[in-house]
């Protein structure tokens, strides 16, 4: 059974400046008595009272302005952050793809990166060695795979990460908006693999600002606003409410054809 249950979850980031992070205050503070104003650490409330239940077969788009808490929610769903208050329980094999500029050692090669990502996703070395050629072919990175990661552009990193997650069979796929960084040609190719993967894998949560990608991969959506879960429902309704216009109105002809709908009598978003 694959599912994610989040109950009344809060994510509060304590912001330690140099002073509060050091021992000095803790130790000296006890001796000297109260020093003026409160010594509490300032907090950024990134997620506020999130209650969410996702199950097998859900394909959820995540929309919201910058800083609304989309990435933080994805990290909560992946188990990287555990809620400061409330609970979250996750069952299933999670494969997250977050913003890719950071995170990995910049000196390791593309091949090493594939291996390490695979190991993190619970694969064995043998399993990854079997897949590495397939991933190399899919990512079209060629000789770049021997180069250190610091020589990669953002799009190339995305290719790598997508290559790894689409070559294994995760049950919970969490994609952050960074994957929009690849070029159109690769996106077309990746889309097929993603659609295929999403059909196989149980659960997708996908943060994006690109309507056509969302329409293609997701059936429902969540609108995050300033850390609050503002709205959850069928994809079309949520995007309409978020953007103030129906996403099917100005959808490209090509995308419409691929989605198998005709632009004038657009099907209800939630049913496709």
């Amino acid at each position: 059974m694959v599912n994610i249950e989040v109950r009344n979850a809060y994510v509060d980031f304590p912001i330690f400046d140099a002073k509060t992070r050091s021992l000095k205050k803790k130790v000296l503070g006890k001796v000297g008595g109260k020093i003026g104003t409160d010594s509490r650490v300032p907090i950024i409330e990134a997620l506020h009272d999130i209650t969410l239940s996702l199950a097998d077969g859900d394909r959820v788009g995540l929309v919201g302005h910058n800083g609304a808490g989309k990435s933080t929610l994805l990290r909560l769903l992946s188990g990287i952050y555990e809620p400061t208050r409330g609970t979250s329980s996750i069952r299933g094999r999670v494969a997250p793809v977050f913003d890719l500029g950071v995170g990995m050692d910049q000196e390791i090669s593309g091949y090493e990166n594939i291996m390490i990502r695979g190991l993190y996703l619970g694969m064995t070395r043998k399993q990854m060695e079997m897949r590495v050629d397939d991933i190399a072919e899919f990512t079209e990175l060629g000789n770049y795979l021997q180069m250190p990661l610091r020589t990669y552009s953002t799009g190339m990193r995305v290719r790598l990460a997508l290559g790894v997650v689409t070559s294994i069979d995760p049950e919970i796929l969490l994609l952050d908006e960074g994957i929009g960084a690849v070029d159109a040609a690769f996106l077309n190719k990746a889309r097929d693999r993603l659609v295929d993967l999403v059909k196989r894998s149980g659960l997708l949560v996908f943060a994006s600002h690109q309507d056509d990608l969302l329409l293609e991969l997701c059936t429902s959506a969540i609108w995050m606003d300033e850390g609050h879960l503002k709205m959850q429902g069928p994809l079309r309704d949520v995007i309409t409410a978020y953007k103030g216009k129906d996403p099917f109105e100005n959808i490209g002809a090509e995308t419409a054809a691929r989605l198998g709908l005709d632009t004038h009598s657009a099907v209800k978003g939630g049913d496709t």
Partner: protein
Amino acid sequence: MPYFCPPPQPVTFLLVHDTSTTEPQAAGPRARVIPGKSRTWARAFADIRLGLSDRELWSHLGWQDIKQRYRRSVLGPLWITLSMGITAIGLGLLYSQLFGAEIGTFLPYITVGFIVWAFILGCLTEGADTFISNEGLIKHLPAPLTVYALRTTWRLTIMFGHNLIVYFAVLAIFFSDLLGEYKIVETARVFQPGLDWSILLAIPAFLLLLINGVWVSLLLGVVSTRFRDVPQVISALSSLLFFMTPIVWSTDILSARFTDLADAGWRVYIYELNPLYHFIQIIRAPMIGNAQSGHHWLVVGGITIGGWALTLLIMRNYRARVSYWV
């Protein structure tokens, strides 16, 4: 019609928490079940258990570190061996003359002491850095925290292995000096028995050191992520610790100053109260044929149990905070 998020239901606490429902799958990644509550003993133990079972991951990362560190050097990881060899020979030559000791027995003494010290120092300094240096990975890929502690310990173990080459070289050269009874320094009142089968005791002794290395990395790792002064404190104290611990000097030097050991009085506590002395002694004594004492094992055993108990408590309470703090 858009519908809004249902109002939070009355708080019914989740009781999903069977952590053992991982179904093995040949082709795909293994399942992780992350139950609701964070601050539980079960989660702390699960972190350690799952971390240990990710053997391929931490061993790969540990090797990666070694390869990365010597990536563009000609000799590569051989530098580990080489620098240990140079240090041990240099210190051995110097201190054997200062203390009036035979090179043939004092050089092995310093070599082994220094090799074990390198491992312990690594556990303290790199252990404190365990989570800080893995910030990127922690925030991008979900994994048990124990994986990073094991990465650190495994890396140090590999370095220890490289350093052992120096020990075996020294052993080969001075084997005859270590075989019979010998004195560490000329003035020593006691004889050391010399090498025998008990050299094998070094193996369980090192395993104990390893087990302690893991908790030290976890504990110092968590604490240092929250209080960034801790790594500084450790590095500030490390040189002092080195000279306080009988590594380049021997406890025999101290006792040689007194005709009766009872006269030494409080001075024996200089080393007896130093936990590192006991860790070094359980490994060093068998490896160079020194007199062994059971009390070192008792102390180390006690520290192992106490250390793990404290670490489990910290893991229970603050494990989930580390990704917020890094």
